[in-house]
């Protein structure tokens, strides 16, 4: 027991002990008051490169740091708006997993990558290029579908080295459409669907509102159509956002979009809605004819009438025959009907579908009319990678680009000439191609692979060197695109913010490499820097004497009138002024579309659309029937808008958004019909394995009345192995399960109907 004295002594000692604490903890508090920092706010322009739209950006910077990315109100593609991806792009600028500088593979280093200098990197690549450029086909370029000068410079580099291995990463649907157009029109001009003026829009498994390219123009045109009272029908296995915004959803079987289109065409022809004058004046191969030998030939018209009756189409597609007739009548009697086919086509897609939808539009006369399919006008200069002698508006022959699957086959089969040097830019084919694993093996076999990705993504992980491109905010950036009205738009902006890494614009990289790769290649690149290329293009724009810098929307008819009368009220007088105005406003455009330019739409021959040119290679019988529900479902993979950026892998805002249809994210979702779910004993949120002989994928179940009972719909975009902390190991990649092998389809354009088994895991 303590006495009073001991107690008081104890209290005193305790207080003294703690009283000493200020000496070491509060000593820290004589830390200095914060500096008074001026807050300087500035604004800059840029051009987004997260998808081929190339929207104009307005970037707000505080003390030199970008804090907000918004849309440029002058820009015709986005008019001040911005999709989810553009607004999240700041997270790429500040990404903690961005590469700090160029790296080269080095097995002696922990992690396998050692920093290298730009000088060494350029010298290495240039000397390699010089060594192989004398024999053809040794250099390959794999580039994304963004349309910009850097992409063109890379293509030019490959061609200068005598190689035609310029692989454009495009959606399978785009590749198929290219083939169709090359056959029927003899050109692969850029198509624009003039949705805003159409009165009845028919979506044939289009995934219109999930499309990851031309997003801004499609969404705005769609909204304009709806505001004007347009009617929208969506036919497809999955409701999705596209179906949610439709007046009617017809749940047809996967792989039958083309059959449905021809069923509608059948009704149009039978009931007299086909635009006979248009068909007579501008189309060949529609009516039956007799050839030179006197043999009667069947035209497309007879074939459609014979094979695609409503009853037969109902049988094949799973729609009701009276629905087909009703939709066809509404479509045919519309003032401005328009049909849109698949825009992505990752699964269950055939060239047949592209051909069928195009034929339907031709029969309905929706070609080159307001509210129909337009042939976009081009910017008044050649692409830098156009083959010598080809003219801008008239691309002769079927200049199709090889697919990445073809390249993989070539390398793995050891074919000659072997590819020695490969560039990968604004693309991640090891992740996005169904043959990604095979492509990775092929890239490992190529002696030198250069990736320009700013982040170590799945393709960069198998490269030899990663020479990071600057982000568009950090450099001069450009985009050569078209808007929703078919007007050419050339966007260009100077750097908006300072680089956060030791990166270099790939355009400057290409020019530096070309300069050091020998005379023969160097002479094809007469520009010292990216800025010089831009100045060169600006001069061509000036000399062309059309268009103006970006401005508010105005009526096309007025512009056309002015141009045709030789009047031009432009905002510049000299080349320098044009350049300065472009930098200030964001770009240049020519807001006029001239209908009836048949020499542009079908160059060559008799300027008639040849419906017979591309054989309908797949007969309707071979369209698979899917009986269900059973535990073998048809796989339907669709792109999730938020998860399909070109090279922006680690954007947590986007990963968190996922699909607007579901409130959960950071997982791969699989939609299953309630009846099928009940049959398989699955509930919302269950984890399942989706398997077939090509592999397996893990996903979370979403029970949805917006999907056919015989189909399972899985979103793509997840399942990266590399790509930073916000992407690695998140979700699972369903593209791995998709079959692309086909003996009669060497370009692997077709995506076969894929079947899968489901296994509940948790």
């Amino acid at each position, binding site marked *: 027991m303590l006495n009073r004295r001991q107690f008081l002594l104890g209290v005193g000692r305790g207080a003294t002990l703690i009283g000493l604490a200020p000496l070491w903890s509060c000593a820290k508090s004589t830390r200095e008051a914060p500096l008074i920092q001026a807050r300087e706010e500035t604004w800059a322009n840029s051009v987004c490169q997260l998808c081929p739209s190339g929207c104009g950006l307005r970037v707000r910077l505080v003390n030199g740091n970008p804090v907000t990315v918004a849309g440029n109100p002058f820009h015709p593609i986005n008019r001040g708006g911005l999709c*989810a991806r553009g*607004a999240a792009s700041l*997270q790429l600028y500040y990404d*903690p997993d961005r590469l700090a500088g160029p790296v080269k593979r080095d097995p002696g280093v922990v992690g396998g990558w050692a920093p290298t200098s730009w000088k060494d990197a350029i010298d290495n690549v240039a000397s390699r290029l010089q060594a192989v450029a004398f024999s053809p086909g040794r250099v390959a370029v794999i580039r994304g579908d963004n349309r910009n000068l850097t992409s063109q410079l890379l293509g030019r580099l490959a061609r200068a080295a005598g190689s035609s291995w310029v692989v454009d990463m495009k959606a399978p649907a785009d590749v198929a459409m290219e083939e169709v157009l090359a056959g029927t029109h003899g050109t692969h001009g850029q198509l624009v669907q003039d949705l805003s003026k159409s009165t009845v829009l028919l979506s044939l498994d289009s995934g219109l*509102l999930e499309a990851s390219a031309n*997003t801004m123009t499609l969404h705005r045109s769609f909204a304009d159509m709806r505001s004007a009272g347009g009617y929208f029908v969506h036919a497809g296995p999955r409701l999705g956002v596209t179906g949610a915004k439709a*007046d009617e959803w017809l*749940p047809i079987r996967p792989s039958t979009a083309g059959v449905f289109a021809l069923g509608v065409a059948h009704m149009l022809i039978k009931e007299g809605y086909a635009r006979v004058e248009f068909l007579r004046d501008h189309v060949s191969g529609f009516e039956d004819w007799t050839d030179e030998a006197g043999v009667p030939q069947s035209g497309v018209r007879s074939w459609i009438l014979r094979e695609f009756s409503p009853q037969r189409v109902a049988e094949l597609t799973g729609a009701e025959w009276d629905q087909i007739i009703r939709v066809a009548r509404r479509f045919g009697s519309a003032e401005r009907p328009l049909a849109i086919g698949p825009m992505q086509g990752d699964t269950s897609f055939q060239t047949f579908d592209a051909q069928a939808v195009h034929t339907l539009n031709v029969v309905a006369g929706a070609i080159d009319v307001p509210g129909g399919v337009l042939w976009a006008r081009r910017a008044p200069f050649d692409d830098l990678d156009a083959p010598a002698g080809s003219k801008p508006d008239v691309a002769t022959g079927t200049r199709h680009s090889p697919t990445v699957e073809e390249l993989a086959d070539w390398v793995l089969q050891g074919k000659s000439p072997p590819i020695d040097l490969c560039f990968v830019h604004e693309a991640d084919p090891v992740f996005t191609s169904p043959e990604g694993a095979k492509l990775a093996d092929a890239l490992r076999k190529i002696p030198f692979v250069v990736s320009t990705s700013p982040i170590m993504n799945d393709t960069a992980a198998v490269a030899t060197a990663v020479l990071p491109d600057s982000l568009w905010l950090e450099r001069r950036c450009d985009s050569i695109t078209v808007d929703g009205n078919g007007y050419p738009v050339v966007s260009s902006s100077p750097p908006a913010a300072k680089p956060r890494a030791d990166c270099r614009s790939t355009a400057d990289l290409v020019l530096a490499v070309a300069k050091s790769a020998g005379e023969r290649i160097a002479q094809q690149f007469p520009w010292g820097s990216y800025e010089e290329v831009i100045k060169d293009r600006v001069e061509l724009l000036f000399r062309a004497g059309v268009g103006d810098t970006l401005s508010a929307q105005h009526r096309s008819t007025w512009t056309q009138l002015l141009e045709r009368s030789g009047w031009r009220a432009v905002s510049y007088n000299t080349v320098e002024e044009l350049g300065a105005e472009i930098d200030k406003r964001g770009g240049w455009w020519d807001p006029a579309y001239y209908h009836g330019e048949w020499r542009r739409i079908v160059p060559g021959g008799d300027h008639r659309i040849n419906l017979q040119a591309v054989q309908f290679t797949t007969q309707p019988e071979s369209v698979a029937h899917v009986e269900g529900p059973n535990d073998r479902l048809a796989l339907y993979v669709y792109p999730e808008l938020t998860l399909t950026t070109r090279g922006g892998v680690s954007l947590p805002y986007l990963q968190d958004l996922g699909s607007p249809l579901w*409130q959960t994210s950071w997982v791969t979702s699989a939609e299953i019909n309630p*009846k099928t779910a009940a049959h398989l004993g699955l509930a919302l949120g269950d984890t399942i394995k989706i398997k077939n002989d090509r592999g397996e994928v893990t996903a979370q179940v979403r029970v949805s009345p917006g999907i056919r009972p015989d189909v399972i719909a899985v979103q793509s975009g997840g399942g990266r192995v590399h790509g930073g902390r916000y992407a690695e190991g998140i979700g699972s990649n369903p593209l791995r399960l998709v079959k692309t092998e086909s003996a009669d389809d060497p370009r692997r354009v077709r995506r076969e109907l894929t079947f899968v088994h489901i296994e509940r895991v948790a």
Partner: protein
Amino acid sequence: MARWGMVIDLNRCTACQGCITACHQENNVPPSNPRLAGQNRSIRWIDMMPMYEGEYPHTAMSLLPMMCQHCEHPPCIKVCPVGATFFSEEEGIVGQVYSRCIGCRYCTNACPYTVRQFNWFEPDVPPTYPQGTNPDVSVRYKGIVEKCTFCNHRLMHARDTARADNRNLLPGEFVPACVEACPTKAMVFGDLEDPQSEVAKQARSKRAFRLMEDLGTEPKVYYLREGRGQ
């Protein structure tokens, strides 16, 4: 005196979610991660509300962008024990004072639209992100409730500029980040008290409806029904 409100035309909204990212960027909303999302604790000041109707194959679905409705009679402010949230009589906006919030979440429960979000965890932000925060908006931390504020920091800047120039606010001078970013111009924003404003005119449309009107909260976010006939 103003009554700031919004009209969202569902014919024009295509559920692109551009509004959500623009809002999060403007208001320094912390990024989420799989753990938070798995617990349904991602913070979204504005979100798409999906509503399925009908059974297969007659399925229909509506997608509504939903944020704080800035009710005229907000249930949330009545239950706050510390006065951390309030209704501004001059602007009609339901605002928040983050420093007073004690994280009791009564307001989150009281809100019938479930638009209030609680910070369950300290925001998981990499060290490189803070340079990119918008200096006009507070950065919140663990234990605080947050929600859409109609970007009232923009309103303050706009009022400041207008007052310095000795004039009234021009139409369109103050728009929240979501309205500015909407690519299809589906959102219209303005002063509902001004009968000539675009937002007041559209709010009087036959297609206009509000959510849960029977509760008497008098929300100031109007939606224009989907369908033909403008």
